[in-house]
């Protein structure tokens, strides 16, 4: 039975066309993926199924949905009201029987109803939002970028949930650019580019033998995990032994031991909340409640000034790590002034020279952070850290939130560094490009540690296997 029928959908503003003659149909229990990069018109199309459009957009064509349409928004954490308990909102949207059914269908345990959204994990929040949508007995569910920014294990869980909903007879439309998820979940695919359909059909057919250049480019841009050659053993420069760290009274790291040699890259991977950032903050001297030892070239790290110089930290949110009122150049040159005792003119000249190497012109550097892109700021932050001539450079999720091309450029920069790099990421695709050694953390403990070649080619622990994306592939039909 056809649930969704879209014929000749157009959406335009006064100046441009967002969606141009899009047509597709979807039967109950089937999954359709609308694929395309940002600006391709997939969100506009998805909203049109709900009968919604942004202000100033004119929609024409015919959209028929037999039954209700439910929408699962992109960030479940933002879609849940921070001051309302989960159960209270459920009781507003449905009667007891409908709630119980929806909770069972989305596999939300009853005890979550007494909690506030911030007391749930990301995966639980996602399931709660799905259950809320299911209370309305929708004939079709539209899921907007359900896996963006999630680690591979969570992505696998989301795929399984949506597959289950489809099995229950609901038509599912996912808006995404994650082709792994599309392969695992979707029966049909519509590839959109600048509002036009460039390819459409059964998923296997479209993705296995792409007929157009754009679909081919999308497939190639998908990050892949490459297994690097075995690394040469080196004398450890950074040596962390039995490190246990606490936040207030909760232990967040438990007897973690890792090591990396000069010029080597240590990849630290794990799901969110596994203790990756705490480990990095201990090494950089930013976290103070820990036991164990952190050795640099065989001697314990001394706190304060020396540690600042020897260990530098590049933060996930580059924009937040700059003062918005001062020029980028000022802030970067300050490293040399503060940590290496250079004069202001020397420091500026040196900073400009280093910035030029990463492709930031002196004109750009003299502007304030607000007028630089996220990628430019992240490169500038890297230069700022490197001007301290650190022996250890900590990079905390520095590529998340950047597009694939910018991401590749930044990783190439890191690859050429003489210092020891601690690279934190939940994305093994990123880590596999650089890491000589990999440590996998789970709930504050090391579950796998070794040569990158060994860890990637022969993962042992379920978390590593999950992060490698095997769970998504297993969910494939």
């Amino acid at each position: 039975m056809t649930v969704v029928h879209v014929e000749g959908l157009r959406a335009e503003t006064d100046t441009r066309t967002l969606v141009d003659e899009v047509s597709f149909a979807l039967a109950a229990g089937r999954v359709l993926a609308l694929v395309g990069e940002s600006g391709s018109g997939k969100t506009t199309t998805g909203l049109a199924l709900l009968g919604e459009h942004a202000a100033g957009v004119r929609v024409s064509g015919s959209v028929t949905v037999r039954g209700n349409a439910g929408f699962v928004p992109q960030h479940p954490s933002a879609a849940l009201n921070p001051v309302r308990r989960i159960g209270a909102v459920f009781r507003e949207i449905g009667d007891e029987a409908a709630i119980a059914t929806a909770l069972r269908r989305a596999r939300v345990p009853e005890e979550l109803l007494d909690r506030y959204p911030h007391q749930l994990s990301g995966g639980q929040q996602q399931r709660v939002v799905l259950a809320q949508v299911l209370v309305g007995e929708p004939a079709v569910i539209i899921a907007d970028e359900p896996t963006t920014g999630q680690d591979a294990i969570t992505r696998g869980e989301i795929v399984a949930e949506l597959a289950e909903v489809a099995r229950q007879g609901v038509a599912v439309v996912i808006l995404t650019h994650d082709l792994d998820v599309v392969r695992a979940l979707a029966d049909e695919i519509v590839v959109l580019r600048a509002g036009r359909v460039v390819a459409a059909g059964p998923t296997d057919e479209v993705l296995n033998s792409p007929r157009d250049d754009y679909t081919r480019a999308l497939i190639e841009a998908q990050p892949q995990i490459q297994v690097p050659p075995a690394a040469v053993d080196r004398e450890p420069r950074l040596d962390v032994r039995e490190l246990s760290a606490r936040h207030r009274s909760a232990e967040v790291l438990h007897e973690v031991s890792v090591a990396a040699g000069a010029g080597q890259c240590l990849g630290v991977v794990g799901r969110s909340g596994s203790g990756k950032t705490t480990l990095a903050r201990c090494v950089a001297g930013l976290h103070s409640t820990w036991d164990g030892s952190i050795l640099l070239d065989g001697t314990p790290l001394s706190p304060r000034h020396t540690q600042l110089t020897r260990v530098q930290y590049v933060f996930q949110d580059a924009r937040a790590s700059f003062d918005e009122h001062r020029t980028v150049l000022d802030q970067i040159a300050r490293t040399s002034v503060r940590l290496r005792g250079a004069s202001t003119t020397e420091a500026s000249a040196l900073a400009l020279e280093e910035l030029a190497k990463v492709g930031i012109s002196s004109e750009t550097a003299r502007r304030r952070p607000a007028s630089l892109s996220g990628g430019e700021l992240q490169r500038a932050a890297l230069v700022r850290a490197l001007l301290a001539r650190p022996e250890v450079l900590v990079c905390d999720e520095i590529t998340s939130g950047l597009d694939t091309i910018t991401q590749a450029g930044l990783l190439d920069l890191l690859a050429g560094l003489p210092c020891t790099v601690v690279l934190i990421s939940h994305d093994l695709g990123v880590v596999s490009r650089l890491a000589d050694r990999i440590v996998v953390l789970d709930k504050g403990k090391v579950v796998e540690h070794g040569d990158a070649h060994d860890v990637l080619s022969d993962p042992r622990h379920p978390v590593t296997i999950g992060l490698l994306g095997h769970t998504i592939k297993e969910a494939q039909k």
Partner: protein
Amino acid sequence: MSLGRYALNRLAFGVVQVVAVATVVFLLVQALPGDAAVALAGDDPNPERIEQIRTSMGLDRPPLERFGAWLWGLAHLDFGTSIVSGRPVSAFLADGLAPTAVLAVLTLVLLVPLSVMVGVLAALREGSRLDRALTSISVGLHSIPEFALAVVLIALFGVQLAWLPPTAVGVGGDLLGHPEVLVLPLVVLLARPICSISRLVRAGMIEALSSDYVRHARRLGLSVGRVRFAHALPNALAPAVQQVARTTDWLLGGVIVVEAVFVIPGLGTTLVDAVASRDLPVVQGLAVVFAVTTVAVNLIADLVAFRLSPRAVGVR
């Protein structure tokens, strides 16, 4: 952190605050120029007479000893006796409390619903003529000091138009028996806080109405009213509650001015008289009462805000 544990922590902190304020008040009063003994000794004092009065009042004892005795008394709710009239300080407090409490409580009772209403109305009609008019009035009204507003209102409604009594002279402490005398003082006390709080409610409401969770709630099929008042409003209120507490601090000062201008025999008037006659125990007692009130109001506001934004404390 649970609400109970948070409340205990804040309560303990509140006790420390009150003791600290009591200490500072004592030190400040010591530093006041002039001396009760000199004031009491009359127009033509001779040194022996002053010395005699000083000894009889215990002013010759070392400050630390007097401070200790005073704190010990406070702990037993004994505020001491007035050195001017010999009445217990608690009697002064009891006399002035009723009019001041009537003013303060009525102000707060009217303040919260009025500012929430104005703020929500402006937010729902964001950018409209009504919104712009409310914004202009708020900014204008907020910049008029209360004594100036009081004098203008008395001149206009009390004297020129004679709609309302210009002062509370003749009414004594029985304000509730003559509600017409309360109108102008309440307008003066409400004018500024309504402006600032309604601005906060408006800003919070606008932000909440454009949030993802409100959009999501609408898509779940909830009614407009429920989305606005059960989903958006609680998020908009948290910052406003803190502002209400700050306003209450300000209100204690405002009450002193308003009582003076409208001649209301409340704690404010008592304080002004006591300072003028160097009646140190009364000044100290009132300061402590004001401090305890401030700490208590802030404690309550913090607890309400904690309940309204469960993420605020205790996570991370």
